[in-house]
């Protein structure tokens, strides 16, 4: 049915218009686009030796100016290059962890909401439990238990951040299931798969999208925190590991603000971008939030 697709396209276009009407959301999206571009292009643009500690010749702890836009770090590498190249891992960890977390959350939320009964109650009990106990504490515990590496960080963040998604999705599932059109679908003879697949999931997905952007924001901050606590993957360059190095090497007492400031601002920019996009999406989905 091309007609159907046309309608879909119109619906998307309308959604986009509602999104575009919010300047902060558009700004966030632009910032994200930029970050993704940087993440993809920088590794290609950076020379092989520019970030190799054994090859760089610049003196360590150079302040900005003097040939290096943002100065150099403790090994003489350009901070500007480091920050730009760190984008990729920070984004990757954030997106993967959030994707995984949201997938778990959605699965559990839909199941708990749809099936209800003692099974749903059990799932919700578990969700509530994980919601209550401090996620970061658990993430720290997990990443100290598992072998060091990016996979561990992703897993630790994902396994501790899904409950909020599960809760929201469950609430939405319950709301959708209470709607008469689901009753109608059941009356038409639709089974579990039909109801969840045709009615619940499509209704939940926009919310999941919003949650994903917000979870990415959380995941990026969490990655940097774990890295700061020395639980990150030190062989990979990320903003978190840069800050970890800055702390380890004494950037604060050296007053090397140029080493400390850029990675943090990078985190803030990307996290803020995700948050803004998420809030804008939320407004698109829930028109009541509109002014």
């Amino acid at each position, binding site marked *: 049915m091309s007609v159907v697709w046309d309608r879909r396209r119109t619906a998307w276009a309308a959604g986009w218009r509602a999104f575009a009407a919010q300047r902060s959301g558009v700004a966030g999206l632009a910032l994200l686009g930029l970050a993704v571009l940087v993440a993809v292009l920088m590794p290609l643009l950076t020379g092989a030796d520019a970030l190799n500690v054994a090859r760089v010749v610049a003196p360590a702890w150079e302040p900005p100016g003097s040939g290096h836009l943002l100065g150099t770090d403790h090994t003489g590498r350009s901070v500007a290059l480091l920050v730009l190249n760190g984008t990729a891992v920070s984004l990757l960890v954030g997106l993967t962890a959030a994707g995984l977390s949201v997938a778990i959350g959605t699965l559990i939320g839909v199941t708990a909401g749809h099936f209800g009964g003692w099974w749903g109650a059990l799932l919700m009990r578990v969700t509530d439990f994980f919601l209550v106990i401090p996620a970061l504490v658990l993430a720290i515990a997990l990443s100290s*238990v598992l072998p060091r590496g990016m996979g561990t960080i992703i897993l630790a963040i994902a396994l501790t951040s899904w409950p909020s998604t599960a809760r929201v999705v469950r609430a939405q599932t319950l709301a959708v299931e209470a709607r008469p059109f689901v009753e109608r679908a059941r009356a038409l003879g639709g089974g579990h798969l039909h109801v969840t697949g045709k009615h619940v999931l499509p209704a939940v997905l926009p919310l999941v999208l919003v949650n994903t952007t917000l979870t990415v924001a959380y995941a990026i901050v969490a990655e940097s925190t774990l890295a700061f606590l020395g639980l990150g993957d030190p062989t990979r360059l990320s903003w978190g590991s840069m800050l970890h190095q800055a702390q380890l090497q004494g950037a604060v007492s050296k007053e090397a603000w140029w080493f400390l400031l850029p990675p*943090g601002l990078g985190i803030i920019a990307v*996290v803020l971008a995700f*948050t803004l996009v998420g809030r804008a999406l939320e407004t698109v989905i829930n028109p009541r939030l509109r002014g």
Partner: protein
Amino acid sequence: MRIAGKLGGAVVSLSMVVVLGFFLFRVIPGDPVVSWTRGRPTTPEMQAALRAEWGLDKPLPQQFLDYLGKLLRGDMGTSFTYSRPVLDVISERVGPTLLLVGTSTLIAVLLGLWLGIRGAWRRDSRFDRVSTGVALTLWSTPTFWLGMLLMMATGDLFPSRGMRDTDTAPGFFSQAVDVAHHLVLPSVTLIAVVYAQYQMVMRSSLLEELHASYLTTARAKGLRDDLVRRRHAVPNALLPVLTLVFLHLGLVVAGAITTETVFTWPGLGLLFYEALTGPDYALLQGLMVVTAGAVVVMNVFADLLYRVLDPRVRAA
């Protein structure tokens, strides 16, 4: 009846904390005795003795049962690092954390609620836009980074570590001033990072209420704008926020770990970090059980409080 259910749920949650605390740290593929004796002249006999003392030589189920039994007697084992009961080590660090987290949460909640109420009431005003923007930015900021930055930026104004100087004159007043002075940077850091969520929650909760028709009723009665807000809108909007304040306590705890680490604040967060670098399983286990347990208990408390404050729930 419902209260009994809640309490039962909390008990279940607490026991899940206990179980998780145990298995998480026993899954660690490592031998604490080896990491312990590293770099020190020890004999295999001493290592075996340590292993026996820490109960690491028994099968895992037996270790778990021992752990449970001891826990019920209030014994969380002996810290590998401090060679003292975990509970003792933890309890002497509770005070500073309560002080830091308590002060910060209180100020953050008040600040967040105030900003959230003002912002929602004058929605899309400049105040609203600016305060929301600031809140979102701070919310996006890694706690430790902000702490390090503040430390660097304030220079000599505030002490960079700890809770007090060792050579402050005795006496309540000078001690209090000294602690307050030390409290400034860590609490500002913690407040800056956590207040935003209270503001955002309060703001959206109040925005939801703004559509409520009882506000039209209140206006129709001739109430002044601020009375409509104070008497009608805020009390209603505040109730859901209350639960969220407690639900977000976990985030504050997380913030406390990094803040205390950055500022060497002698509380549970710092202890957590220390236990992590050990790693001191017994202590980590105890800390997780205690913090998670505390948050669970606080949430039950919030639930009961909610019951007292909200007549709708009370009746249900």
